């Protein structure tokens, strides 16, 4: 009796989880599905939403209601070919995103792992105070940190150049904190053993610490990448030169114009995240597991 009751409960819980998962997946799947739809099909399905603001051409057939369809009636690559071969603007903006984000991710993680090693191996009063300052800075929203960033960019003449975004991004304290939390979990006996074997600090850092932090490094790189890949605040303030702005800002401007194109560009923009994510989900989860508390 009790057992069957449990089974019913489990089925019930499973259904709730499945329902939630379905709702969570809709936007992602819709974006991808819509990118393969022809303009006519999009007009038929979403015409009533984007009519008036878009170049969808109001003469064609429009459904009475918006239709959410997960599989296009006919697969069309036209949007993609337009994006890739006919309008270099999107590819330029994509490239802008890449040259902003890739240096930030690589150097932020590199500098942060050095700093985290320092916070892990050499503890003292001053270090603890500095670490506390890092925590405070990490918690400050962009609304606060962009003002000092702007001032520095103005003094150094970096305003409107990519460096105004890249340099503060590289030294942002977010990954220092998470990596330190992770490194402090490595047992000191392991480090002591390496030391007894005559390994210097640099060797301990590169041969013992870094390999053990692989999952944390990967998960932090993913988080930093996703955050900067979607940046909006920094470019509109620090990089007013539109030709240098990343696609994350520019995408909003095609939203109102050509909807079909926007979906295709959005899907292309999703690919790097998708790749990182599918490649590293296990690392992501593991990295999160060991750095999940803010204190200690």
């Amino acid at each position, binding site marked *: 009796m009790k057992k069957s009751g449990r089974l019913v409960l489990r089925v019930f819980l499973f259904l709730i989880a499945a329902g939630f998962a379905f709702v969570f997946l809709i936007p992602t799947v819709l974006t991808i599905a819509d990118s393969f739809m022809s303009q006519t099909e999009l007009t038929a399905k979403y015409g009533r*939403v984007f009519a008036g603001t878009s170049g969808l051409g109001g003469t064609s057939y429009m459904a009475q209601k918006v239709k959410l369809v997960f599989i296009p009636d006919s697969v069309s690559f036209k949007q993609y070919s337009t994006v890739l071969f006919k309008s270099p603007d999107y590819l330029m903006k994509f490239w802008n995103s890449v040259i902003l984000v890739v240096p930030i991710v690589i150097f932020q993680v590199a500098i942060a792992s050095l700093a985290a090693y320092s916070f892990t191996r050499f503890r003292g009063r001053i270090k603890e105070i500095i670490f506390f300052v890092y925590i405070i800075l990490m918690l400050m929203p962009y609304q606060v940190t962009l003002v000092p960033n702007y001032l520095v960019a103005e003094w150094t003449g970096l305003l409107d150049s990519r460096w105004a975004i890249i340099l503060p991004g590289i030294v942002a304290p977010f990954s220092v904190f998470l990596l330190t939390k992770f490194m402090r979990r490595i047992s000191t006996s392991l480090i002591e053993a390496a030391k007894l074997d005559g390994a210097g600090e640099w060797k301990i850092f590169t041969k013992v610490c870094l390999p053990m932090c692989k999952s944390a490094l990967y998960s932090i790189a993913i988080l930093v990448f996703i955050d900067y890949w979607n940046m909006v605040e920094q470019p509109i303030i620090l990089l007013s030169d539109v030709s240098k702005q990343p696609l994350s800002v520019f995408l909003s401007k095609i939203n109102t114009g050509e909807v079909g194109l926007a979906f295709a560009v959005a899907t292309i923009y999703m690919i790097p995240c*998708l790749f990182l994510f599918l490649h590293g989900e296990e690392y992501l989860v593991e990295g999160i597991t060991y750095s999940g508390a803010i204190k200690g």
Partner: protein
Amino acid sequence: MKNVSQTRKKIWNGLGRNRRSRELIGGAVYLAPSFIGVCIFFIVPFGVVIYYSMIDSPLQHNFVFLENFKNVLNNIAFKQAATNTLVFSAVSVPLAVILSLLLANLLESKIPGKSIFRTFFLSPMMVPVASIVLIWQVMFHYNGAANDFLSTFGVKKIDWLNSDYNQVVVVLLFLWKNLGYNMILFMAALNNMPKDLLEVADIEGAGPLRKFFQIKLRYLSPTLLFVTILSLINSFKVFREVYLLSGDYPYGGLYMLQHFMNNTFRSLDYQKLSSAAVLMAIVMVIIIGVLFILENRFGKDVEG
């Protein structure tokens, strides 16, 4: 004999001190790239920001102390932006914490397909903000899917994006985007919980609710703090979605602090910018301090 041991001690001590100083220098070298950068881009300019917030203009340098703060606090746009942001955070952060905790418990209750569900719930993380915004328009446009769905129940059409309902839409967007990551954090914490304690509770006949509130929640308190702070930071970033959804001047309730800052940047009013930034920093420090104190009280006896 005594002499020998003393010299040996001296040598050891000397070595120890030497090693310590070498380690200190080593530690400083490893920290230097990061710390110098942080000083240049955050700490030093923030000192200047504090200075700017207390003078009358960057040309005159007359010390006016609290005058700028008063001006900002009396500024209608700032008041509206601050209220909207606070309301948004006050609604969305607790929701993001509670719902993700429930989801984590749901997935940890031994239902099949846990890892697939985990992937599904994490998937919003990888969707670029801009493409989400497109879908949200399809859903919540006046002629969009949400209204069609509701109209089958006889609900009148709502102009989601251009009325006070737009806050509801953005809260939904925020939850959709952030629940997955929060959930993973809670799942990790639930897995690290001492199993024997829960077994004892089972034997003693504690119900699932009691187990949750009296055991699990206490062990989760560091994670709760972390997730709350993370959600708070992310709730300030919701400007991205709002900006892409409705541009520089959104309908009333979505005029966020970042909108105010953007417009102030455009007019380059350093006094206003600086004092607004300092005010926000103070408020953030207070909120975070309170959260830390609460967590200390609540989870003290289960740590260590």
